[in-house]
């Protein structure tokens, strides 16, 4: 499959994520949109990595060059998992305190 398809798919996912973050007020949905953006990036990384690997493998079957992008994806997933746990914990605390997950209530930093 041409690389273009992956790029467009990732672009679409990323845009959906951005629009979601910008338009929604529910903290959980925003959180999900952020995950969407992260995964768009992951998708791109995997796609480019595969493309480079195939190019290198054509010259040398035993090569591992170009696979590091895929490794990065695992790192990102781990970090994202950690981030999700922290983020969800914050949202739970927020709900306990103000009985809402609407981010527009969170404007106390201004004062």
């Amino acid at each position: 499959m041409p690389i273009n398809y992956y790029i467009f798919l990732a672009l679409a996912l990323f845009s959906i994520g951005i629009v979601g973050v910008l338009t929604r007020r529910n903290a959980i949905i925003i959180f999900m949109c952020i995950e969407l953006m992260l995964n768009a990036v992951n998708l791109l990384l995997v796609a480019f990595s595969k493309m480079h690997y195939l190019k290198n493998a054509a010259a040398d079957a035993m090569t591992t060059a170009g696979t590091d992008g895929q490794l990065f994806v695992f790192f990102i997933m781990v970090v994202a998992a950690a981030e999700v746990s922290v983020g969800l914990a914050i949202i739970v605390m927020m709900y306990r305190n103000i009985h809402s997950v609407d981010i527009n209530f969170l404007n106390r930093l201004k004062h």
Partner: protein
Amino acid sequence: MQNVLQIVYLIPLLPLIGFLVNGLGRKHLSKSMISVIGCGTILASFVLSIWVFLQVKGGNTHVADYFNFISVGALKIPFALQIDQLSSLFLLIITGVGFLIHVYSTSYMQEEKTEHFGRYFAYLNLFIFSMLLLVMGANFVIMFIGWEGVGLCSYLLIGYWFKKQDYNKAANKAFIMNRIGDLAFLIAIFWLIAKVGSVSYTEVFSAANLAKLKATDITIITLLLFIGATGKSAQIPLYTWLPDAMAGPTPVSALIHAATMVTAGIYMIARSNLLYSMSHITMDIITYVGLATALLAATIALKQNDIKKVLAYSTVSQLGFMFLALGCGAYTAAVFHVMTHAFFKALMFLGSGSVIHAMGGEQDIRNMGGLSKKLKITFITFLIGCIAIAGIPPFSGFFSKDAILLSAFEKSPVLYGIALFTALLTAFYMFRLLFITFTGKFRGTQEQEHHLHESPVSMTVPLIILAVLSIIGGFVGIPEVFMHGGDKLGEFLSPVIASHDGHKVSHSTEYMLMGLSTGLVIIMIIFAWIKFKNYQRSEATGFGKVLENKWYVDELYESIIVNPLNKLGSFFSSIFEKSVLDDMVNGVGKMVNYGSRQMRLLQSGQVGNYVLLMVVSMVIIFVIQFFLRK
């Protein structure tokens, strides 16, 4: 083996130490301690100077190089002192006359508070240090350091009685006028560096470098140096500071404004005589400026009534004579006149100090008269000074003035005529001063008459020594016509000063010129005697009034330079600064205030807004980068 002259750094160092000790300890030392330190350091320098002079006379000249003072790229300016015939002669004059004046000062300034007494001697020592640096420096930069140093000391000492606002103004005037000349001097140094790549005398005056220089460059450099000299040596148009500088204590006037500092310009030109000899334009300008100054100042001196002002204008006039000699190429004659002038003018200033001391601070000669009975030593020494300056043989002034007149005659008889006329005026106003002050009836108050007394020994001894020097000082330069090989000074200076290309005037002419000038001078003195032996106070009228008011030159400067500058200054301070500069500065502050107030609105506290802004900014950055990469 190192040259023994390597230790000449001691000569300027000793006065510097004296300055530091007296300056820092002025509140703790007693007056006698201060006097001993102040005079002792100069005496030590004087003894060293004599030793140096004997070394030089024995044929030992030396450039003592101590350390690298400035080093930029290819340009290296060493801190070096040059000992040769010219500088050793000046060393003797400065430390010798300086020492006598220091001794004189110990009595003259006795009434000052200890603290101010210490300040006075500290300044005086600092002056000697600077002056020694000026004449000993082996390059123009070291000379410039001394040049600025003497200017500073002159300023400090003119404004010594700083509680009187007029004196401060006089000090400012001297300093600012000197600055104008100093600027030209500085530009000349830069010009030299640009064209020759060096400032040390030996390199600049080497034949190869002189041949390399273009005629226009030489003219510009010499002219700029000459402008520097007009400032320091009080020539037209920068002479007006010197008469005002009489605000300082009288010994200061004697030391700085008669004997040494004001001759710095002559020293500089004599030092660079090789350069000057190559530019006829500059030489002509120097001749005319010198002659004009001599004449102008002599006419002003005719009608002055302040004893020190007469002497001040006389100094300006004599300096004009020296420049006339320089312009005619008679460098030796100029240096000779510097020497004799240092003797008799210091003598007369110190004499006037003695008179002022006796009169209890009175300086107006109209209130004096008949002082010869009470102040015998002062009168006799003053008379000797007057005879010397008037130029009656065999007093010192005759020989040096005759050498100058002769050089003027060789250049052009017209110059000689004007110079002779000026010399006659000199004799006239000096004897006018003498007769008004010392003969006739006393015209002051009773109290003053009662107070009249001869000055103490420490004041009269320097007077006597200077009087003796004024009598015999001329014998080092006896003209060829009187004695073959009599011009010892010219012989001595010949290694540093390009010799004056022989006397073109026949001996009989020379005798005639001398006879003429001496005869006329004696007639002038008799004329002054008849006119002023019984002086009665009278108001000057007509042309006399113009002279009394110094040709209104000060008023002219006031109206065409000072006032417009003041107006411009007050315009800038009251209008330009308030409306333009202040608004600009305040405007910056206001703009930042206003801008930050607007920017604050962005901080809404809404997370959504922040994210939106972030996204928009990133998109903008991407777009910009996208276009920039093209």
